[in-house]
């Protein structure tokens, strides 16, 4: 039996009060590939990522990750997901290391992994500073560590390069880039950058799946329409 797709959405719908954030969105993401989610602010990108991360429940339609339907099997799948969201999800008054150790314990990961990651992103010398005192770029690097701490099979990246200068960007690339070898869903303010990395594109407009297909199939006109 072939491997189930990493993500399968069928008619996914989610409301916030009377506003519909996602409207019958369907897409199939094979394992190991990268999905770029494009669209304007408010098109539903972050909502989609939050649903995939099990933080939000779908209101209608079907969501399954690695063959496990959500939200019923959310518990089984949670440990295999890594979310990098707008907020770093770090406590300001704890140090970088303390934050990562906290997450490591929650995910049942050994502390050596924390040290390994801190070194990988070049934060080992600032790891004893409270997060409050770090620059945004450093905080983002720590957030990346947090997201990949437990070696997730699916990475959900909401604007991963935000606040990162080119040097830092290079440091995190092996952790969250194509080379990481896992399935990825990413959104970006810069559609061209996202397209360059994508195997599959989902274009959202007002919560609807306006385009689903390979990056080459996305015409310039269609792209403009998504961001209109």
């Amino acid at each position, binding site marked *: 039996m072939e491997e189930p797709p990493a993500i399968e959405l069928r008619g996914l719908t989610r409301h916030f*009060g009377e506003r519909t954030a996602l409207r019958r969105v369907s897409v199939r993401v094979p394992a190991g590939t990268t999905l770029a989610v494009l669209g304007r602010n408010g098109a539903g990108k972050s909502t989609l990522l939050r649903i995939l991360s099990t933080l939000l429940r779908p209101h209608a339609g079907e969501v399954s990750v690695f063959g496990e339907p959500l939200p019923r099997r959310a518990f089984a799948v949670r440990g295999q997901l890594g979310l990098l969201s707008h907020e770093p999800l770090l406590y300001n008054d704890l140090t970088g290391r303390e934050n990562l150790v906290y997450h490591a314990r929650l995910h049942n990961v050994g502390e050596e992994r924390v040290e390994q990651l801190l070194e990988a992103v070049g934060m080992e010398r600032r790891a004893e500073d409270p997060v409050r005192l770090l620059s945004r770029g450093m905080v983002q690097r720590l957030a990346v560590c947090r997201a990949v701490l437990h070696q997730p099979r699916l990475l959900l990246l909401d604007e991963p390069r935000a606040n990162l200068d080119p040097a830092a960007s290079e440091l995190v690339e092996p952790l969250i880039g194509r080379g990481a070898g896992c399935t990825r869903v990413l959104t970006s303010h810069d559609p061209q950058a996202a397209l360059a990395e994508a195997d599959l594109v989902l274009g959202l407009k007002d919560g609807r799946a306006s385009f689903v297909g390979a990056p080459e199939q996305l015409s310039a006109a269609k792209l403009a329409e998504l961001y209109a």
Partner: protein
Amino acid sequence: MTIYGKGLRGLSLATIATLGVALTLIFFYAPLDANQGFVQKIFYVHVPLAIISLCGFIFGGALAVGYLRTGDKRWDMRSYVAIHLALIFGIGGLITGSIWAKASWGHWWVWNEPTLVSFMIVLLLFATYQPLRFSIDDPERQSRYASVFAIVAGAFVPLNFIAVRLAQEYVHPRVLTLSGGNLPGPMRLTFLVSFLGLLLLYVTLWKYEMAAKNARMQVRALRRRLLGDDGIRPVGRSAAPS
């Protein structure tokens, strides 16, 4: 699609009839109390209001369990209506109790009176129900949190009564004891009819309000389906489930 209007007319008529009979009994049939005189008759209204109110709160808590288990907004609607009607009945009970207290003991409020005091505490708690709902914007979260509150507060009602009763000597006449009540015949009949009338009133009002809210909810859903999101005006903040 649930319809709450079924049988509403029959229920309303039954309510009015029973209340009518009750009033007649209260004024013309039930004997005058030797000590307290005419004012004692308010007891026929006060006690049922209080009992129904407390049961309404516990009922609201039970309905809230239904919402948490199924996620169906109708349970939340039922719970909301049950609680807010119970609060109104409760305030009525408190006021009539106060009138009775003034007439019987000369004070509008007595502290060394556990039933009245614990009742007031329960009302204080449930008075926060609507402000709580109103302060949560997301409707689903509002329903969920309100349900959690209703369950906790519903469980609180009996605990509260136990604690307060233990704390004080009682002045409040023990009307209905576990041994079945110590009311003489005609008073008992009047009391039961009055209780039944007010209970019917509660249920009728509950069904009316459910029917109205349910209908409104469905009209909105239909309009949204037909006209799209733009066809309906946004509801804005509201304490009631919509």
